[in-house]
């Protein structure tokens, strides 16, 4: 038992430490706030990064949530659990004044499970229509209860908040998002530069942004609910379609989680292949980021540059995996097929080529006066805000928050290769851009260290035809192209998961738009959104 668990037990002696799968500390909901505050403001090891809030439906036991916490200095992790036994009127205390990211994560839990969070100022639905009936991720949800509604949706301008009266009664009040005096511009969902179907209701005063209210769910496909009726090998198919620019990494995370739970050891060859593929995917994604950012800002030539090199990566991947964008390559126990005979040769040639042309990239865009003026000093996100908002990946690293999962919680071959974690301290759009450009070169370095040493062996170990996981809760995390991606599986010993949750890398990024853009110019909105580099299908899941 580690120090943090001991500390929790001294505060709340009735807390239960569960060791089914991973260590989870169950805390009664009455004392949950006390524990959360104590952990957040701990003097030695403050748990200042809330990785995720996962809503759960435990049937008879009630509705509850899991809180995944991490300390940004020691990188220790802990998972808390709290339950409300009343399924009809589930209330839990909000933690949104301790971690800002909880504002939007609690909305997600409310949307899917109907758990209301006391003192969260914004208890609206987030992914589903405001007139949606029922809570789809509950086990007793009737899948046919909401037929297709072709009426245009009207969004409310106020939100609900629930709070506890001094005499112990729960009451509600309305908070105003946009008042009568606000001039609201609607951006999206059909907008070419929001990287998908993001919709932002933006209130402006002249050219200055006063508030951004992101409206999500235009590509919410209910992947988490769908996965509950699929077997484990089948669930893999969904991961590639979450963040399609991190297809390999997403699938890697889920495979790792299942392998860890089922106790499958994969061969070193598969580890090497997975790591190389992950890094190729990262380069691919960052090249697309470069192309799209330039295109969003009105420069078309870099788009052609970026796609020229991207096609080379797609060729390399296609030869081995058979797919261009969605590869479905990682499997439980290894990878689907052995690498193509020319894979090593082509990858090496590509890296040599990329090192040569990357100068052109910088000449044409990074050095351009227009790009520099539009990026430097614009959209600054401080380190504290980045941590509180949970903006992992390049966005967090541009603000000086060292959060690379590959470095701090190494998986696959990352523990054995030498690479630098790129961090900047400015936190502006330009730093966010440079982090990604530098990461391309770091990824090249990682591949170079591995590509010649791929050991012989089998690429896939034999697994049982029907994979069943032992009971318990299992997690794994990887660094995708745009941040920390976590998989959480709760297993009841069946061949399909009881609950499968993915941490969206983009949700905190979209949430951060409001903090970053407030007070900025509306003309910078698209450039800031471009440097944050979110992918909407990953947010909506």
């Amino acid at each position, binding site marked *: 038992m580690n120090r943090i668990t001991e500390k929790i037990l001294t505060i709340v002696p009735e807390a239960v430490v569960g060791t089914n799968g991973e260590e989870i500390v169950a805390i009664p909901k009455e004392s949950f706030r006390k524990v959360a505050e104590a952990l957040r403001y701990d003097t030695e090891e403050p748990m200042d990064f809330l990785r995720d809030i996962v809503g759960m439906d435990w049937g008879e036991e009630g509705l509850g949530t899991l809180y995944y916490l991490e300390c940004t200095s020691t990188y220790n992790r802990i998972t808390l659990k709290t339950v409300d036994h009343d399924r009809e009127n589930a209330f839990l205390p909000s933690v949104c004044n301790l971690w800002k990211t909880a504002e939007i994560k609690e909305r997600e839990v409310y949307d899917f499970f109907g758990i209301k969070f006391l003192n969260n100022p914004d208890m609206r639905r987030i992914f589903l229509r405001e007139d949606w009936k029922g809570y789809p991720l509950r086990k007793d949800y009737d*899948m046919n209860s909401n037929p297709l509604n072709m009426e245009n949706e009207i969004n409310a301008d106020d939100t609900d908040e629930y709070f506890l009266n001094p005499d112990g009664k729960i009451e509600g009040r309305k908070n105003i998002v946009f008042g009568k005096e606000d001039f609201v511009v609607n951006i999206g*969902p059909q907008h070419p530069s929001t990287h998908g179907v993001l919709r932002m209701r933006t209130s402006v005063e002249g050219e200055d942004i006063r508030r951004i209210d992101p409206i999500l769910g235009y590509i919410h496909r209910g992947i988490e609910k769908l996965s509950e009726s699929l077997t484990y090998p089948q669930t893999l198919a969904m991961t590639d379609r979450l963040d399609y620019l991190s297809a390999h990494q997403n699938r890697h995370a889920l495979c790792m989680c299942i392998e860890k739970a089922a106790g499958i050891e994969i061969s070193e060859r598969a580890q090497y292949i997975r790591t190389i593929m992950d890094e190729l995917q990262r380069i691919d994604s960052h090249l697309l980021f470069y192309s799209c950012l330039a295109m969003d800002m009105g420069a078309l030539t870099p788009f052609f540059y970026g796609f020229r090199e991207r096609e080379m990566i797609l060729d390399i991947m296609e030869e081995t995996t058979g797919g261009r964008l969605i590869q479905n390559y990682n499997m439980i126990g290894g990878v689907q097929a052995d690498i193509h005979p020319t894979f090593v040769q082509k990858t090496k040639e590509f890296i040599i080529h990329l090192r040569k042309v990357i100068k052109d990239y910088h000449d044409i865009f990074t050095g351009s006066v227009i790009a520099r003026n539009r990026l430097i000093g614009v959209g600054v996100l401080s380190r504290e805000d980045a941590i509180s908002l949970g903006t992992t990946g390049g966005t967090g690293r541009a603000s000086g928050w060292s959060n690379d999962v590959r470095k701090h919680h190494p998986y696959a071959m990352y523990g054995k290769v030498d690479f630098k974690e790129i961090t900047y301290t400015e936190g502006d759009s330009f730093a966010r851009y440079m982090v990604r450009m530098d990461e391309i070169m770091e990824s090249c370095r990682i591949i170079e260290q591995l590509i010649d040493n791929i050991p012989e062996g089998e690429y896939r170990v034999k697994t049982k035809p029907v994979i069943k996981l032992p009971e318990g809760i299992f997690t794994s995390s990887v660094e995708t192209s745009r941040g920390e991606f976590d998989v959480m599986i709760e297993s009841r010993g069946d061949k399909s998961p009881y609950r499968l949750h993915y941490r969206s890398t983009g949700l905190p990024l979209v949430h951060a738009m409001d903090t970053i853009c407030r007070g900025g110019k509306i003309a910078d909105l698209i450039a800031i959104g471009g440097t944050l580099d979110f992918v909407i299908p990953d947010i909506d899941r």
Partner: protein
Amino acid sequence: MEVKKRTSIMSMKYEEFKNNDYLEEMVRQLNMDGAGIILGTLDELINWGRSNSLWSLTFGTSCCAIEFMALGAARYDMARFGFEVTRNSPRQADMIMVLGTITYRMAPVLKRLYDQMAEPKYVVAVGGCTISGGPFIKSYHVVNGIDKIIPVDVYIPGCPPRPEAFYYGMMQLQRKVKVQKFLGGINRKERKPEETEYVENTSAENKSENGRHE
């Protein structure tokens, strides 16, 4: 004067298309009404222009949109075929390419965008999700095929389709545009019921004849 039986486009030979039968059927039905020499000739000219400059509305909701971007880049270069101009406003677009899953929340938006487009307009459904719901067919929030909401002209299957598949689908649309009646075809009177019956009968006969030949 009648609509040309074999619709030719620059990019690909007629024989190389795998599904010519539906187009031949379309031409046959169009020819039943006949076409005036002047209007017919004008039609051919206009359709030649229209089919070679199809402006699409960028409507990418998920993965397929990235492949569409690859189509626009140098390697696949869709400018060769005349549909490189993408419009961000439905008012300026000839066709809507639905790239990616359509969910319940998006469905009214898609319908609205379609309604905002000017006639004549076309719909291309790209990817498994738009055709049937794809891997998410059992979901509580996914429309099982956009043909439930708007009429679809061309389906391009794949998850996501390869750029070559995009081309094939787009060429099919070009051929479809080429056989349409631009003038006089749109506001024409509705047929009397007995005439439609006749059409159905003859097409059925035709089919059985074709079957015998094979």
